[in-house]
């Protein structure tokens, strides 16, 4: 019976060091942000108050961390125990995605020293979609760390603690499925209120449904993506079979999603906007083609045995879902009045710094903690 083990190996690899350097540079921009305000580092404006950090680090970042959620659904709701080996790496990715989204939030909000206000009952606005997202994400981060704790406890040999947590783990697993369902869909509802400023190609009452389904298949895509990369570099057990099954589930979900998405646009009478040849129309076509093609490819059984094909399909699906969120939050958002936005060098560097942190943590974790099954 193969179990998870640390992959060992040198920590200070070139990749790790480059990421470290990028992170250090981003610290300079972060300092500038806190000393001089958001305007000094970002291109955010009154027309585009949300930009790269919210759209990418928070919305996309947490969506990319839906691997844990998606795998938990398969294993615990659909009872597919054989997927279990993929759970831990997925959980780890979720951990990073969500924790660092929290870091991005602290960087992005203007009055960060009062951020805890949303946890105080007398300040909470229960009508606010964003409040629900914030509370859910906060709770989910805690759940993820608890779910992940056995991995740490194994390394430090704390067997009693590990046994205790494993006994009550079922509560947290259940929460770990409930909470993302709530907040990933609500991340779609967040943009419903901006109906007058969001292109009809993206605004719909079904935004929560679309965000939820897309985050689930994105979670699977991330699992395939990550396992493929790790598998191509490190001596881990070959998970191609499992990845093939996951890819199959993914293909079906994409099919359901595309039907809902396109039917919704057609019924609301806005399909013509997709073919105008302008930026918005092309973005809409691109985001859906990047889903349609891999879906078709993955419906072919032979392709689900080919590691390279599955990797490329996963990449396409990740890009598509990332683009869908960028479109909903930034590109499809037009406040009118002559505003436009593109992230500044400072904004990009800070996001890069956060991603670099993530990569460095990922490398340390897989080498020093039992995450993957070894050969």
């Amino acid at each position, binding site marked *: 019976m193969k179990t998870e083990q640390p992959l060992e190996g040198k920590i200070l690899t070139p990749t790790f060091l480059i990421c470290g350097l990028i992170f250090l540079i981003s610290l300079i921009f972060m300092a500038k942000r806190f000393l001089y305000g958001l305007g000094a580092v970002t291109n955010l404006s009154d027309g585009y108050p949300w930009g790269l950090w919210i759209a990418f680090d928070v919305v996309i970042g947490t969506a990319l961390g839906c691997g844990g959620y998606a795998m938990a659904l398969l294993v615990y709701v659909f*009872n597919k125990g054989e997927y279990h080996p993929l759970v831990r790496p997925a959980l780890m990715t979720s951990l990073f995605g969500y924790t660092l989204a929290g870091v991005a939030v602290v960087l992005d909000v203007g009055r960060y020293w009062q951020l805890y206000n949303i946890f105080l009952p007398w300040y909470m606005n229960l009508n606010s979609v964003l*409040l629900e997202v914030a509370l859910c994400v906060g709770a989910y981060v805690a759940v993820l760390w608890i779910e992940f704790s056995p991995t740490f406890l194994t390394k430090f040999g704390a067997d009693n603690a590990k046994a205790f947590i494993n006994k009550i783990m079922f509560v947290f697993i259940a929460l770990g499925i409930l909470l993302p369902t709530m907040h990933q869909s609500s991340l779609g509802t967040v943009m419903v209120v901006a109906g007058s400023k969001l292109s009809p190609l993206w605004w719909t009452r079904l935004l929560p449904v679309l965000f939820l389904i897309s985050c689930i298949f994105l979670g699977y895509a991330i699992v395939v993506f990550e396992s493929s990369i790790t598998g191509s570099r490190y001596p881990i057990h070959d998970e191609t079979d499992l990845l093939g099954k996951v890819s199959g589930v993914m293909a079906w979900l994409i099919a359901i999603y595309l039907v809902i998405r396109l039917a919704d646009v057609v019924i609301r009478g806005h399909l013509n906007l997709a073919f105008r040849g302008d930026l918005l129309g092309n973005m809409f076509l691109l985001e859906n083609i990047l889903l349609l093609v891999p879906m078709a490819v993955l419906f072919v059984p032979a392709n689900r045995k080919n590691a390279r094909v599955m990797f490329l399909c996963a990449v396409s699906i990740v890009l598509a879902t990332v683009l869908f969120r960028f479109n909903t939050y930034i590109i499809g958002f037009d406040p009118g009045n002559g505003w436009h936005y593109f992230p500044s060098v400072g904004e990009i560097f800070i996001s890069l710094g956060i991603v670099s942190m993530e990569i460095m943590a990922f490398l340390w974790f897989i080498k020093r903690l039992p995450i993957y099954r070894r050969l």
Partner: protein
Amino acid sequence: MKIKRRDFLKGLAGSAVLAMAPPAMAASSEKNRLPDALGILYDSTLCVGCQVCMVACKRANNMPIEFSGAQRQWDNPVDLSSKTLNIIKEYENGTPKTKDREIDGYAFIKRHCMHCVDPACVSACPATALTKNTKTGIVTYNKDACIGCRYCQVACPFDIPKFEWDNPFPKIVKCQLCNHLLAKGQIPACCGSCPTGASLFGPVKDLLIEAERRQNMTPGKYYEFAESDISSPKKQVHKANKYIPNIYGKNDGGGTQVLMLAGVPFNKLGLPMLPDRSYTAIAENIQHTLYKGMILPIVAFGGLIFLVKRTEKKKKE
């Protein structure tokens, strides 16, 4: 790949229950006008673009001067901002010779917070930093609650809340209908200083009646118009202009307490064309459908506990 069809359908049904938001379900959270709401009636046809309202607003609210270019002699913002709560903008078309004409004409529009009946910013703010007074309906901001997330900026259909981008300890800034002056028995500075009666302060129900009266005026005939405050005995006599047959803010976006009349179509003046049902109501509808009383989440949680325990038991076998 084989998924047992039964399991698949079970899972799908569960997900659908958790995620679908059929509009037919749950009562809509439509808001009605408050009976004692206070507001402003801005009549673009009476406005002469003197901008005294901008000066008075800056003085009354201690706002800093804003320069839009290298010339630093005047306060000349191009839009509302963290330094400017109220602005007069000018519409121009062709050779702008005639006032309040759409083609080859010009007109003025006053922009500031509309103090909506169903404010998107109040609904959006997670920390209750923006609140709507339950009597006057004025929407005010509390910096001690605010976390600076700027969701209010995303939500507002009029793009009113502005942010202090150049301040390391920033606030959101917007017109608060001179709440601090109302407390002293005075009226908003813009209305108090307007020389032509273009900005008129008063209870919204009276302003709506006045707006209808103006819509029914015969263009070219002379009528009496109140100055500054609708209850003021001081009246001016003006020739009535041809109005666009619409009171902006009566129903737009769920209704606003700042009403507008104009001689040029409102969309040309930069005002957004909004449906009568506010997007706020739509978003709140979705949330209430899913989360009212936290019933659905608790039921789902119970179901998930059951499923997880069953899986764990199976694993042990």
